Every structure is written in structure tokens, then in C-alpha cells.
């Protein structure tokens, strides 16, 4: 069975380590914050200028001056810090964030990512995504393995305009967790009940299948 959104978020959360500063993109990545293990502390960076983002506010806590990068009202945790956008992206570009999780339209086995533009259709802009993928050493891309019509999103070469070149090394889809090494996807884990064959069929780029590919556990 393909992972649900919640399972994707849960699997992302397994990558967290105690003491990690993490930037979570809009959508599934943001959900991962709900699954931080209780014996662990993670601090969330929001690229509009906040380190130490908390949950959504209670109705009476809403503050128009306190939003996240998705423009949603949020709160701050104890120990939070505020800074300007220039300082925020200095932090990101300088590689100080330990883990970045974001969505994408396509990833290829060269580590390229396309996530911001569909020519003639979606031209809203890249926001902070290009800075995030250029700045982080440790990035996880989350997305569905294939489109609804069965087109693979894991390609030998991205077809859409790139967000970043050669910067992605780990991809989590609803079917599998893969690393990218030397121009190949390496299958690391598969979703419970999903066969290796199905993953092979739905992966466009070169895929290496190790002898043992464990199922994900939650």
C-alpha cells in the first residue's frame, strides 16, 4: 500500500535527531512536526525569519505579526529567535540548518530537482525553495512516486525547469525511500506491502536494488 500523507510525515520524522534545526516546506513536510519523537527536541526554522516555530495558535493567540513561510498564523516556542530575511537566508545558505524537507514535481538521478514551475500553467515563483536546496547539505524531498496517470516523477532527467542542480541525495515517496548516488537511485526502503517490481516499474531513472530492501516501519 502506498503511504498516506500521515505515514509520509511519520517517515520523515524518523530522520530527525535530537538537537536538529529543521526547515519543513509547505504540505507534507510541515506535518512531520506532529511526529517528533517525545524523547527528542527539534527546532523548526521558518525562512521568513523565525527559529523556534510552535504549533498553530489558539483562536485567542492569533497574531498577524507572527506567521510562517506559508503565511499561516503560528506561535513561538520557548527559546525562539526572530531575525530578518537576509539573516534567515544567510543561515540557510551558510549551511547552518541540519535538515531541510520539501516537496517537488520531479527529481532525477543526477540529484536535480524541479519544484516551482510548470511552463504555461503554474508560474507563482520559487519563493525560498532555490535557496533552501542550494544551502542545505541534508535534504529530503517528499512527493508521490508517480503522477495520477502513472507517470514517474523519478526521472533520468528532469523535464521541468530546475529548482536546483545536483543537490538532492534522498527522496521519500509514497512507495519508497531512495538515496541518490553516482547518477543512480538506490532503493533503501519500501512502503509496507509495496513490491520491488512496482517500484521498478514506476521509476524512470536508473534504479539500483540492493539485495535486501526492508519495509518501512512506523
Amino acid at each position, binding site marked *: 500500500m502506498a503511504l498516506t500523507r500521515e505515514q509520509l510525515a511519520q517517515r520523515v520524522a524518523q530522520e530527525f535527531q535530537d538537537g536538529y534545526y529543521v526547515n519543513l516546506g509547505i504540505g507534507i513536510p510541515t506535518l512531520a512536526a506532529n511526529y517528533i519523537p517525545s524523547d527528542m527536541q527539534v527546532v523548526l526554522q521558518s525562512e521568513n525569519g523565525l527559529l523556534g516555530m510552535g504549533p498553530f495558535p489558539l483562536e485567542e493567540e492569533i497574531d498577524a505579526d*507572527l506567521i510562517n513561510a506559508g503565511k499561516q498564523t503560528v506561535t513561538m516556542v520557548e527559546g525562539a529567535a526572530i531575525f*530578518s530575511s537576509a539573516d534567515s537566508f544567510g543561515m540557510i545558505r551558510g549551511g547552518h540548518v541540519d535538515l531541510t524537507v520539501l516537496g517537488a514535481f520531479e527529481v532525477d538521478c543526477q540529484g536535480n530537482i524541479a519544484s516551482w514551475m510548470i511552463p504555461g500553467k503554474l508560474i507563482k515563483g520559487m519563493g525560498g525553495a532555490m535557496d533552501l536546496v542550494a544551502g542545505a547539505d541534508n535534504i529530503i524531498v517528499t512527493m508521490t512516486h508517480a503522477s495520477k496517470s502513472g507517470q514517474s516523477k523519478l526521472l533520468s532527467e528532469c523535464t521541468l525547469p*530546475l529548482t536546483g542542480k545536483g543537490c538532492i541525495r534522498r527522496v521519500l515517496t509514497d512507495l519508497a525511500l531512495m538515496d541518490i548516488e553516482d547518477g543512480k537511485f538506490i532503493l533503501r526502503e519500501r512502503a509496507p506491502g509495496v513490491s520491488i517490481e512496482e517500484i521498478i516499474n514506476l521509476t524512470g531513472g536508473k534504479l539500483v536494488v540492493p539485495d535486501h530492501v526492508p519495509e518501512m516501519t512506523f
Partner: protein
Amino acid sequence: MSGFDKVVTSYEEALAGLEDDMTIIAGGFGLCGIPENLIKEIKRKGTKGLTIASNNAGVDGFGLGLLLEDKQIKKMIASYVGENALFEAQMMNGELEVELTPQGTLAEKMRAGGAGIPAFYTATGYGTPVGEGKEVREFDGRHYILEEALNGDFSIAKAWKADRHGNLMFRKTARNFNPMAITAGKISVVEVEEIVEVGQLDPDEIHLPGIYVNRLIQGTFEKTIEQRTVRTA
């Protein structure tokens, strides 16, 4: 002895000298920390042919979205747009030129403009459409592109508190692009929620010194919220 008193009392005076075809650097992220009344004054003035650098372009009927109604904006330099239908329509039919710029690069271009750095290298955008036509250079085995500073004829921004000399404090994530935007404009105009007497702000707690501020005005703010998300107790 009023040389340092930056306070003006009308929005008309605040934007005196703003003319057609000028470039404006604007603070704000989404609708958070935007100079909403200065934008309304630009609409009232009817200034046209503007180039505006701002992370976003407001929404229909609020923020920079207001300036689309009478087609006052010629060109937007932004990282994320199209939260409003009018913007998309004007962009698609070619009435509005759009230069999409990564968010961090945009912030750094404004900072560079204010800090006398004409250009800098960044890995952001290398190998993407953003890097096209820009110089590529290798440092330590990694590729970077050259990005140039942004400067404006005016900058418009919003802060929380100021003293009459223009020393500024921002509040929470309404800080965002505001400090850099202010430094990058030849004439910088800042609207604030509260103006206090000189000496009332702790020198260690000032986010941006008054040297960057030319005009200061106290306003009242709607502070429209774009995405009202809540949890239940």
C-alpha cells in the same frame, strides 16, 4: 535642532517626490509587515510605471494588489506572486513584467544595495532558469552565479516602534524584508505603530539605526491575515 527629526504628519508628505517610472523597494512578507498605508497613498497619488521589488505582490484588494487595479506597476521583482487573480491576468497578457528572484537572493540583493556591495556570488539558482545569462564561477569546486545589488529611488517599509530619529524596532515576523528594504532606497519612508521620544529605546535593542530612515510616519494598520490557521485547546 530638528535635523534628525524624521517625523512627517501626512502620507502625502511621506511620499512627496515619488514620480512615474521610479523604482521602489518594499518591505513585508505576504501581508505581514507591509507598509499598507504607504501603498494606499501610492494608489491615491496614481503614480504609474513603477518597478517594485517586494517578496510578494499582495492579494486582490490589499497590499500591492491595490496598485494592480489601475495598472500602476510596470515591473515586479519578487520571489512568489500570483496569490491574486489580477496579477496573474496582467502577467499573462504581458501588461506586467515579472522578474522572479529567489527569496534569499532577493533579501541579499537588497542588503547589498544598502551596504555598498555591488554584486555577490551565490549557489542559489545555479543551473536553473534564474542562472541563465549570469556569470558562473567556481569556488572550492562548487558553482555559483553572480547576482547584482538592488537599489531604489524610494523604499517603503513598516516597523513597530520608532523614536523621532528613526531608530527602529520590528515586531516578530513582521521584521522580514523591512530592514534591508529600508537601507536600499535613496529616500526611505517608514510607517510605524508608535513613535516615542528620543532616548526611550535601548541602544542595544534597536534593530535598524535611524541613519537609514528619511521619513517616518505613524499609522494605523488593518494587518489583514492571509492564512488564519488555529488549533483547538
